[in-house]
């Protein structure tokens, strides 16, 4: 994990001191809690609670947790809905809408039974609302514009207040012009921790939302009218190689909470370990009902918590198993060139198009090719590992299990050094005799 970069307000690091002097001057007059900003695209360390009920904090992949203030026993948060610039991966920035400087917005962490007050300031050009996905709350706090409340007009601040009644995994997103606002990246994670910190306690608790964008190569604003043909498949609005690894100490109990706000399902596959699905949208799965899996399909609008013991050291892939979802922007209408010898034609084409290079005749691998792309565009596959190009993009990361990590150390330990003789290698011995398939070989008369 990369060291946390300096956010606009350094208090975010570790301490939960949410209100600073400068913040007080702006927000104090209105009686609002500070609305801190985050501008680093990297994973921030967990935010341990400085007040209120204790809990084991989560780590938001390539994200952060929103600080709060306690006021008369109520946890007060301040979300600002606003246009943001999000780096999807190094080399590409997207103009999105989000909360408090980032898309997705910060993770909100509370404890079962907490009284929660959330101020929502709308700095978007149109009305918005916030729906607290999965929560039990008074109907008027459900955030469906038109149905349970008027939309929050641009420039105005609304307040939501309810008690976090049920521990579990939740999300928040607009329910006003939601097609556009979610296509623009308006969403965030919500975790309600159990009142008893020992309940299903894990050592590392990661959260991320899955989202998808359709951004024309060379452009920066998503096409909000796209329904299915997205070209950027992201976790917390980051695409590999922009997704941080999930760093884990060997034998840690690990929970990964995943929410799906795309328009298709994602079979999330973990290498090297089996896991149990321990939580769904509706709550914790009783131990007797848990299924062991290595790939959990997470449907649209669903959340899943999966848990496993990270017993196996190494760099283990974690990815969506839809092959196109581990690719970045690509042309879905490009014909297959496999097996087509282009050498004769390539010369002719190169006379017309001087920088032309024949591609695809041997397959799609192009991880080692370095060719100029349209600006602000990610290569279809990118990222390099210790053994060469990792021909993946999109919804791909690694779970890095290491023996000698400190308890709360989330720093990227680098590539796994496999013990000698434990890596697949070229066979230098005698080749085994090839056997014909039964009946597959006929003597010609």
């Amino acid at each position, binding site marked *: 994990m990369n060291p946390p970069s300096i956010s606009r307000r350094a208090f975010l690091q570790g301490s939960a001191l949410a209100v600073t002097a400068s913040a007080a001057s702006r927000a104090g007059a209105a009686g609002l809690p500070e609305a801190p900003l985050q501008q680093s695209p990297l994973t921030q360390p967990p935010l341990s609670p400085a007040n209120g009920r204790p809990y084991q904090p989560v780590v938001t992949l390539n994200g952060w947790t929103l600080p709060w203030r306690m006021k008369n026993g109520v946890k007060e948060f301040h979300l600002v809905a606003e246009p943001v610039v999000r780096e999807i991966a190094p080399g590409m920035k997207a103009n999105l809408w989000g909360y408090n400087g980032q898309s997705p917005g910060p993770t909100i962490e509370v404890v079962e039974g907490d009284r929660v007050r959330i101020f929502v300031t709308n700095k978007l050009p149109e009305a918005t609302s916030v729906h607290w996905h999965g929560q039990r709350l008074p109907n008027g706090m459900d955030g469906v514009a038109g149905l349970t409340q008027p939309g929050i007009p641009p420039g105005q601040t609304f307040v939501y207040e309810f008690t976090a009644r049920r521990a579990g995994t939740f999300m928040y997103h607009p329910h006003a012009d939601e097609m556009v606002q979610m296509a623009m990246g308006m969403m965030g994670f919500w975790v309600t921790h159990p009142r008893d910190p020992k309940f299903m306690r894990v050592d590392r608790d990661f959260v991320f939302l899955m989202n998808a964008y359709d951004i024309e190569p060379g452009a920066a604003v998503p096409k909000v009218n796209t329904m299915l043909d997205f070209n950027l498949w992201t976790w917390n609005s980051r695409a590999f190689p922009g997704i941080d690894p999930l760093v884990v100490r060997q034998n840690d109990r690990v929970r990964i909470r995943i929410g799906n706000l795309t328009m298709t399902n994602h079979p999330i596959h973990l290498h090297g370990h089996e896991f149990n699905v321990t939580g769904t949208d509706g709550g914790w799965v009783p131990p007797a009902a848990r299924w062991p899996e290595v790939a959990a399909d997470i449907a649209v609008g669903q959340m899943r918590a999966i848990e496993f013991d990270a017993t196996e050291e190494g760099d283990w892939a974690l990815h969506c198993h839809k092959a196109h979802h581990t690719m970045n922007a*690509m042309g879905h209408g490009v014909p297959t060139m496999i097996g087509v010898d282009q050498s004769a034609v390539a010369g002719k084409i190169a006379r017309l198009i001087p920088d032309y290079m024949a591609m695809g005749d041997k397959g799609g691998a192009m991880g080692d090719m370095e060719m100029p792309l349209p600006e602000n565009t990610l290569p279809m596959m990118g990222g390099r590992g210790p053994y060469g190009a990792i021909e993946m993009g999109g919804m791909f990361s690694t779970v890095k299990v290491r023996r000698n990590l400190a308890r709360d150390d989330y720093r990227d330990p680098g590539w796994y050094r496999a013990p000698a003789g434990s890596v697949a290698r070229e066979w230098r011995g005698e080749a085994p005799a090839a056997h014909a398939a039964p009946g597959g070989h006929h003597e010609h008369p």
Partner: protein
Amino acid sequence: MIPLVSRPSRASALAACALLAGCAQLSPDGGFGPLREIVAQRTGAAPAWHRTPEEAAGNQARVAQLLPAGGRLATADDAVQIALINNPDLQAAFAELGVAEADLVQAGRLPNPGFSFARTHSGGDVKVERSLTLGLMQLIAMPAASRIEARRFDQVRLQLATRVLATAAQTRQAYYRALASQQGLAYQEQVEQAAEAAHELAAKMAERGNFSRLDAAREQLFYAETQTRLRRARREAQQDKESLARLLGMAPAFTLPERLPELPAKIDDAADVERQAIAQRLDIQAARSELEGLRLSLGLTRATRLVNVLDLGALRTSESGKAPETGYQVDIEIPLFDWGQARVAKAEAIYMQGANRLAAVALDARAQARLAWRERQDAYELARRYRDDIVPLRHRMSEENLLRYNGMLISVFDLLADAREQAATVNAAIEAGRDFWIADAALQLALGGPAAAENRQGTQP
């Protein structure tokens, strides 16, 4: 015939004849010098008239110097120069100048005196008449006739100069047309190559099972259509080159530059195109000269009232399919019944007719100058738009498309389709450039002098 002229008037007539005869010698260059001056001043290229085998040979040498066999016709100015000395139609037209000059000289010559001898029988009588005759009529009419012929000679010269200027403009236009269609042909060849590459690739892909027959047939069809377009472009290029060669008076055994000249950095404002046209156009000068002739004739009528040369203007007979016949007729009447008042009225009417004709010619000239200027201005804007915006944008699109191909966002077929579109845009840009130069030559002609495209010489390839 008995001469009925008093002694003093005969003497004065003889003196006048001598004077006129003295003026009206055949000139060594057949009156071509002033014509050459006019044309050279307006086009920068001097025409030549070859009346002897030596002159014709000299001309061939000059052509060979401008254009070695199979050589490169580098500029439109060279093409114009060759046409002005080598176009056979022009040479034929120059002969009219000789005819007109001969008429002029003839009109100023005293008629030869003649003797007549008559011996007649009337019954038993024999009658012998001997007389010395002199073309008295001709003598009386000689001053007027000479003036008229001199003016006619002037007019022939102006008409010829107009024709030379038109040929120069046509040559210039034909040059740009031939060059542009040749340049367009080169791009059409590129398009054909792109189509061929796509076709070959599609055929291979169909063979290997990567492409459906439908997709392969689409590329094959496009290739076939491109071939027909190429053939058409080739034919047009040949036609345009032949047209130019015909104007140059030679076989199309020459090459043209690969590209049209650059557009001028700027072109003049339209401040005085109309004034320029009025000052420079030869048709206006011809109409003005005709009117001047009428004015003099009108004066003559007032003086004599006996000699009618007004038909100079009136005698413009035209039959369909033939060139108008102009000339004059001199009548002498005995003023017994008609003392000429009606004739004066007619003279004035004819003069007014001439004045109005001049006005009409001037109006036409102004309109043509305005229109030609506007058209050149528009053609310039269009050609610049292509050069400065459309072609660079097309080029940028192609670069971006290549980047997209690199990212496997589009296929090689998209890339080839883009190359074809780029070639089509470049072709349109070539045509826009050609249209500018053609409009420029048209403006030059409409102004009767050099058009205002700046640094014309400097930008020729």
